């Protein structure tokens, strides 16, 4: 089976500073990849490269066997830690926006029957993330957790090939975070998503992911700390029953079957 996303020999450098060196990855459709690593290990850089927000200095990225343009597109959805939703639009407006962009290239607005269809689809999506009661609320009226739910709904309505999450639950309190874990696990399974998530929380990485990547520097020169970049030092596929006992329960049932240092 050809991988959905494949990164070959990816280097990201800013001037003399090497952030990522020689990253090679194959990501299969339907997987939930957690990326962990210390601060400054290039987790977010890797995500930005996959997202198309920046081009790698060297290397190639293929999505479905086709090279990826160094520009964001509707095939890759994203949820950032903050600022992912538009403050001037209601929850419904935020979610419908993705449909409007595709169907109305000039006005970016829909009218009549098309609008009703789009609103119905967006309402359904908002209900799926648990925002059915806040369709007309503006982001400023929402809690952090609700804003992240909205950001997820917004991304999912485009049915992206890959959903990228950049520390999506980092700013939430533990109770809300557990709810969000349950939500993302359910959505991942309901919509057969492929998810790549960057996180600082190792427990989260293992409980949600089907595969955990740890980024770190293999080499370190104390006199030139930026000389060497990070790469995937651990790549752990986890086998666990999909949605057997919810995300929290699943953490106990993890078996790490390979530990292969690429």
């Amino acid at each position, binding site marked *: 089976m050809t991988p959905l996303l494949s990164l070959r020999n990816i280097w990201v450098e800013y001037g003399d500073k090497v952030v990522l060196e020689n990253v090679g990855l194959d990501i299969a459709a339907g997987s939930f990849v957690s990326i962990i690593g210390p601060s400054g290990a290039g987790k977010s850089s890797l995500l930005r490269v996959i*997202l198309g*927000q920046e081009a790698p200095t060297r290397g190639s990225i293929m999505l479905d066997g086709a090279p990826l343009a160094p*520009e*964001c*597109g*509707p095939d*890759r*959805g*994203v949820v*950032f830690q*903050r*600022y*992912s*939703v*538009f*403050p*001037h*639009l209601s929850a419904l407006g935020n979610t419908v*926006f*993705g449909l*409007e*962009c*595709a169907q109305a*290239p*000039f*006005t*970016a*607005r829909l009218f009549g029957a098309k609008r009703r269809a789009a609103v119905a689809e967006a309402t359904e999506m908002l209900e799926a993330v648990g925002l059915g009661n806040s369709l007309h609320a*503006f*982001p*400023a*009226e929402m809690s952090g957790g609700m804003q992240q739910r909205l*950001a997820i709904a*917004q*991304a999912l309505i*485009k049915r*992206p090939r890959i959903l990228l999450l950049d520390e999506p639950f980092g700013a939430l309190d533990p109770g809300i975070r557990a709810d969000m874990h349950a939500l993302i696990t359910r959505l991942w399974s309901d919509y057969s998503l492929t998810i790549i998530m960057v996180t600082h929380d190792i427990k989260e990485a293992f409980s949600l992911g089907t595969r955990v990547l740890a980024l770190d520097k293999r080499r370190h020169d104390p006199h030139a700390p930026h000389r060497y970049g990070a790469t995937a030092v651990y790549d752990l596929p986890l086998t666990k029953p999909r949605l057997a006992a919810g995300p929290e329960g699943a953490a106990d049932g993890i078996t790490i079957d390979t530990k292969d240092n690429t």
Partner: protein
Amino acid sequence: MRWVNRRIGRGNGFLLGAIPIALLVLLYLTAAASRHAANPNDKILPMPGAMAEAMAVLLFQPDPLSGQLLFWTDTLASLERLGLGLGISTVSALLVGLLLGALPPVRATFGPLVTGIAVIPPIALLPILFIAFGLGEASKVALIVIGIAPFMIRDVAAHVVALPREQIIKAQTLGAGSWQLMLRVALPQAMPRLIQAIRLSLGPAWVFLISAEAIASDTGLGYRIFLVRRYLAMDIILPYVAWIALLAVAMDFVLTWTSRRLYPWAHGAGH
């Protein structure tokens, strides 16, 4: 309680705000009364009665030469120039500011030009405007536009540039192109800022209007003030200045109200 923690209620706020104004009026009246006690014909600090009499002529009696009610023709002429100047500036700030803010190539090309124009003192350009547009309405409106539009353009552009990068990325992952991004993400979020920029530009706009009218005009609030200055007619100048202040405050109030009304999401507690 520390002063930084004191909260002022609505009624108290009104009262506190009125105190310095009332004191200033009282100070003026005392000074005027003492001058009139020394010299009943004093023109420098006229008493309120004299101001009312002088203004009544301008307000209600047609000018024998032109047959017009001078106060109202002055007001209308000035507001027309100000409105045109503000209108043209606002439209250009929105269009140019949005393009400069949202599109890096446009910013790289025209950013330095806008900055260059913005740092020229507009009054230095007034002779050029008089030569180019003549002494009519066009040069006065042009002075206001040249005076405030560059500032407003830069303000709107800076605001659009400062929109979180995450939002711009997110919009693109939702399928938005440059045009859709400008229309649906940048434009609505620039609107409250644009209104804010108009509010801040009102002061300079009045300065340029009064300057232009003082130098070459035959009607307008600034023209009248500078005309009657020759006769030391403080009984007309002071009410005119108060009237200008009142108009400016009213415009500011309307703009704030409009912004809160149309863009409640930009005002936090407003919704």
